């Protein structure tokens, strides 16, 4: 595993980026130059270009963009981890039950997830977020309510194909309860698919959360949400180029990190589709 890791540059890059994101979030306060600038500001220093004092420049309020980015990392992690966690908690059990049993409710559950997949995720998320009002917990709710069917799909398909495996049939024959079979036998076998799906899902969630923030449906100001920071920068666009650049790059990097990590994990964990040579 370690040897693969060192050779698979994509996986390694992804891992490094994600680790950096987590570190930035944990040590946001000591790392930042102006920890007070998350909520406070300094109007005399409005729209300064990047320099020695303000590494990535300042925003329309005169707050240090670098410091706000660091605290924004916390928000990004908070939103994507909780939204993904809720989506996993809804999606995985649904997929397990629907895949394990072959009854009318299996079809019903899959049809319900199909309906959710039939409408563009971001559209539904916008509608829900707008309905509930701009707040972090509403963003989380909107994203998890729209993204869970992806896990249901994956888990359903994998569970279905496992259903006829000898070790599952053996467990059933030995009198294990359905719950026990699902949790102790099926779930561990499909864990790698869930992990891969979740890693890539993190990237998608971050992008969607940023879009909501950009449309003004995310956390209210002055929260240092990356998408909102980009939205704020629009009216200063030709002059204050650094204003939009920094948070945009941050999103790009982090989403890329999760995508690379997910792809790398898939190649490593799933020998069926491992690349030749």
């Amino acid at each position, binding site marked *: 595993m370690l040897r693969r890791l060192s050779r698979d540059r994509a996986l390694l890059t992804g891992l490094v980026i994600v680790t950096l994101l987590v570190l930035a979030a944990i040590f946001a306060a000591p790392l930042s130059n102006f920890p007070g600038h998350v909520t406070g500001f300094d109007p005399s220093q409005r729209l300064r270009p990047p320099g020695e004092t303000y590494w990535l420049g300042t925003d329309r309020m005169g707050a240090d963009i670098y410091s706000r980015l660091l605290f924004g990392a916390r928000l990004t992690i908070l939103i994507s981890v909780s939204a993904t966690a809720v989506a996993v908690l809804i999606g995985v059990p649904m997929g397990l039950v629907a895949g394990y049993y072959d009854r009318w409710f299996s079809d019903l559950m899959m049809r319900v997830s199909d309906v959710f997949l039939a409408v563009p995720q971001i559209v539904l998320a*916008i509608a829900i977020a*707008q309905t509930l009002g701009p707040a972090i917990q509403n963003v989380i709710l909107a994203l998890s309510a729209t993204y869970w069917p992806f896990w249901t799909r994956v888990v359903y398909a994998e569970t279905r194909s496992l259903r006829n495996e000898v070790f599952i049939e053996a467990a059933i024959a030995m009198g294990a309860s359905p719950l026990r079979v699902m949790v102790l036998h099926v779930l561990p076998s499909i864990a790698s698919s869930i992990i891969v799906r979740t890693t890539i899902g993190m990237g998608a969630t971050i992008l969607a959360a940023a879009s909501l923030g950009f449309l003004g449906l995310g956390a209210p100001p002055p929260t240092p949400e990356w998408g909102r920071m980009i939205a704020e920068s629009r009216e200063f666009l030709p002059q204050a180029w650094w204003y939009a650049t920094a948070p945009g790059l941050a999103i790009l990097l982090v*989403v890329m990190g999760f995508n690379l990590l997910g792809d790398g994990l898939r190649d490593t964990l799933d020998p069926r589709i491992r690349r030749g040579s």
Partner: protein
Amino acid sequence: MRLLALALRRCLWMPPTLLGLTLIVFSVSHIIPADPARVLAGENAPYEQVEALRRKFGLDKPLPEQFVHYVSDVVHGNMGISLYTQRPVADDLVERLPATVELALFAIVLAVLLGLPLGVVSALRRNSLLDHVVRVITIAGLAMAAFWLAMLLQLLFSMHLNLTPVQGRINGWGPDPITGFYTLDALIRGDGETFFTALRYLTLPMLTLAIPAMATIVRFTRAGVLNVMRSQFVFYQAAMGLPRRVVIWKYILRAALIGTLTQIGLVFGNLLAGAVVVETVFSWPGLGTYAYNSILQSDYNAIMGFTLFTGSVFIGMNLLVDIAQAVLDPRGR
């Protein structure tokens, strides 16, 4: 025959799916804390006026009844009156549809024209410099926030190079509508100047939508070609000494493109969804901007109309893709 059965079965699933979709959107839009009648009448309107509006739009009825009414109306092609524009939602959607379709079509055509060859070539020249460059672009294209990409393009092409307009669809009025596509209408009317103007307005939103779409297509094409290259029949054909170009251009490509086709359907759906954000940034007067405005206005008839409409397009696309795949892959017949 089996093909027809497949199509029929899929079509039969459409009404329940659409009904489920309506239910979801209806539930979401009716827990809106804001009172739509109040929004419509205005902050300071007298109580009686608000109540009159409420009755007029049936907002005083119990929710299940409202839902049943809504569904029966939709079945008859009536999506209700937009609370904001005061026009039938169906008319609003039809009016804005050409702008979005024109944008989406241009974007998907560009994405396919660039993505397919790039995907094929980078698979055939695996680990070459070109392959690495394409992969980096692909990875970045999939990780970029669409609105940020839109702004970067505006910054570069509109503000610094002055090549393209910052936003909008045309200056002044568009050409007299025939199809509603400005570029096509201008061409039909032989108005070259309008055509190029429309094209200049189209460029940036099209690029913004096309880049992530292209990235997805490149990715799937590349993986598909590599996958087919490893298959047994390609080995057999090599072992029997068939010319490599025949194996690649006839047998490998055909097999790989069937897989990509599925993706193009999905990509087109995502593109429509992406239009909500991208159209907003470019003030493109299409469905996306309409949806965004109606959400901000708590215009729930319009939200439901849009969502239902996009959902139907999504489902329709999936149906088409399934059928196309069955037609192209003899095993599905």
